[in-house]
């Protein structure tokens, strides 16, 4: 027995080539179960209330107030006006869609590529996706002005015999965003079923037992159930991966199919996908770094996992930098005077020049700090960088939208844009709603996919000595 164990040891790759375990300090299945359910079962910590109450205030007081005021009065309460017809509403729509994308990329694409480390952060990233898409979907619905006619966008048979006009990418967007919301919610909920069953089995009170029993749908964890579950999970992951590329491409097409200089570019779909993923990684880091500390998940979300997200952030920063360069190059090489005007004014104009500089400084220059391991391992700096990335990406959308609209082809047509307090209030309201839902999620549902983490541990591998395997038999 001892002999075969040493045999196994010699067969293993040398130390430097071995993969570090997903969960540190060799924790067993029981420990993991207790640890990962502790937050939903324990007493609500004070920090949760401190974060939750302001978020809930913005979500339940500020946001409805702004929406009621805007819908009952009209779009004029926002800063949008001729010629800048798209303002904070569309900036924030694109921003929220972008935030959602990294969640899908982490939970679906890294699943398909069998990156085991993604199991620990997948659920949190998916939840971010679901809530961010909800916030994104709100904007187009209220941006149409007469929100009570939002149903015109759906092919509903009515007495007037009107149908949506499917030649417009804006129409495709309706389907893309709604599909994104539904598919990511399904993916998220399906992954939750076994873990809700775990909470059901551990429930101490009748109320918890009842609610989790309903949500778990009677899951028993039989091999046949797992068999179908795994297949469905792969299929959903594959479909979600398609959405990563589709949804933001369509948002990009909303811009690219117009004639406006600064928007009319074939690179736009790709531009928006890459920007979305980059911004989303920023948001993932903003959520993960504090929660890991506050919920004591250091052994599970290890610094190695955060290091990898940092590397992916750096990679997407390089991609977006390439696209920025390409955009400027085409503006110059294309020889279109209007295009050249818009692009030179993004950095050297007299009104909105700061947007272009913020976007370049943060998204290109500051992200280069992530090349250094010492920076990647200093989580405080990474957190600040992640917040800045979100701000930088917000200004990218500001530059693209306002920067292209305010000075178009005819100087007589030029104008200004300034946001109003309703614009700001609505944005703060959506931020509050997002964080409120996120805090409720971590409080009542398992934020780490318990079953998935167990399945990638050596303790869960029937061919590993820690999983009970004897000797070298595999």
């Amino acid at each position, binding site marked *: 027995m001892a002999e075969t164990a040493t045999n196994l040891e010699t067969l293993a790759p040398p130390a430097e080539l071995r993969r570090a375990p997903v969960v540190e300090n060799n924790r067993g299945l029981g420990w993991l179960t207790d640890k990962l359910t502790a937050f939903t079962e324990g007493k609500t910590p004070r920090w949760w209330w401190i974060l939750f109450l302001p978020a809930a205030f913005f979500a339940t007081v500020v946001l409805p107030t702004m929406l009621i005021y805007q819908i009952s009065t009209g779009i004029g309460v926002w800063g949008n006006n001729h010629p800048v017809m798209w303002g904070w509403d569309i900036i924030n729509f694109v921003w929220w869609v972008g935030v959602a994308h990294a969640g899908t990329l982490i939970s679906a694409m890294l699943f398909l590529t069998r990156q085991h480390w993604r199991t620990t952060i997948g659920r949190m990233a998916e939840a971010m996706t679901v809530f961010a898409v909800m916030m994104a979907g709100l904007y187009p619905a209220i941006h149409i002005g007469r929100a009570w006619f939002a149903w015109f966008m759906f092919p509903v048979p009515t007495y007037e015999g009107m149908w949506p006009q499917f030649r417009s990418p804006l129409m495709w967007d309706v389907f893309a965003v709604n*599909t994104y919301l539904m598919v990511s919610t399904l993916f998220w909920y399906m992954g939750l079923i076994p873990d809700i069953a775990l909470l059901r089995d551990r429930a101490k009170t009748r109320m918890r037992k009842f609610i989790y029993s309903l949500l778990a749908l009677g899951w028993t964890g039989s091999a046949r159930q797992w068999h179908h579950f795994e297949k469905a999970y792969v299929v959903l992951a594959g479909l979600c991966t398609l959405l990563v590329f589709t949804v933001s491409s369509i948002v990009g097409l909303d811009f690219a199919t117009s004639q406006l200089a600064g928007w009319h570019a074939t690179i736009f779909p790709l531009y928006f996908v890459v920007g979305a993923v980059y911004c989303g990684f920023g948001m993932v880091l903003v959520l993960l770094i504090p929660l890991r500390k506050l919920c004591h998940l250091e052994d599970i979300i290890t610094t190695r996992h955060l290091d990898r997200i940092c590397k992916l952030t750096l990679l997407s920063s390089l991609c977006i930098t390439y696209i920025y360069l390409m955009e400027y190059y085409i503006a110059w090489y294309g020889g279109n005077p209007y295009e050249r005007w818009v692009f030179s004014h993004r950095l050297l104009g007299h009104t909105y020049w700061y947007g272009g500089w913020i976007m370049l400084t943060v998204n290109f220059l500051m992200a280069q700090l992530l090349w250094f391991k010492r920076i990647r391992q200093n989580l405080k700096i990474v957190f600040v960088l992640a917040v800045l990335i979100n701000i930088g990406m917000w200004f990218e959308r500001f530059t693209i939208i306002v920067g292209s609209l305010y000075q178009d082809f005819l100087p007589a047509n030029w104008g200004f844009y300034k946001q109003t307090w309703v614009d700001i209030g609505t944005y703060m309201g959506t931020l509050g709603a997002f964080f409120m839902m996120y805090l409720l999620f971590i409080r009542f549902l398992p934020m780490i996919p318990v079953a998935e983490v167990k399945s990638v541990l050596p303790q*869960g591998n029937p061919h590993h000595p820690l999983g009970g395997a004897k000797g070298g038999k595999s």
Partner: protein
Amino acid sequence: MSVKTYGLIAEFDSPAAILAAAERVRDSGYQRWDVFSPFPIHGLDNVMGLKNSLVGWFALAFGGSAFVTTMGLIWFCNTFDYPLIVGGKPMFSLPMSFVPSYILMILGGAVGAFIGMIALNQLPRWHHPLFGKKRFELVSRDKFFLVVGANDPKFSETETRKLLEQSGGVHIELVEDED
């Protein structure tokens, strides 16, 4: 209300133990048995002889029909029922109809995969005979269970119990179900 035997349940400690026990139960010629675990165990599908899941076909059927339906809907809306010239573009063309159809194909595929998973697993169900067993609550934690159904042709309370004991199972109990 009569009570009938549902099967015999045995508890195991590790994934390797349950895999070995499953091999043993299979080799003894049992057909109606199942394994319950906190997570999917690698290699168990082969031991149990589970064939490729049909979930993929559900996704294909739902996704494919969503694609075709959306194409048809767009043709109906913009070409047949209310033809309207916009920007001199054709009444119906692939560039305009493909993208929404593709998007709804993804939606259909996802809904299909989910419905397929639920239907093939016979969920949702509010009751399962195993939920009556106190120790079965550990199935989502760190214990592994093997249940041999009473409807198995080879099932015998004494012989099956002996087999489960020999395979290393502990807490072997009879599961009963209300009729």
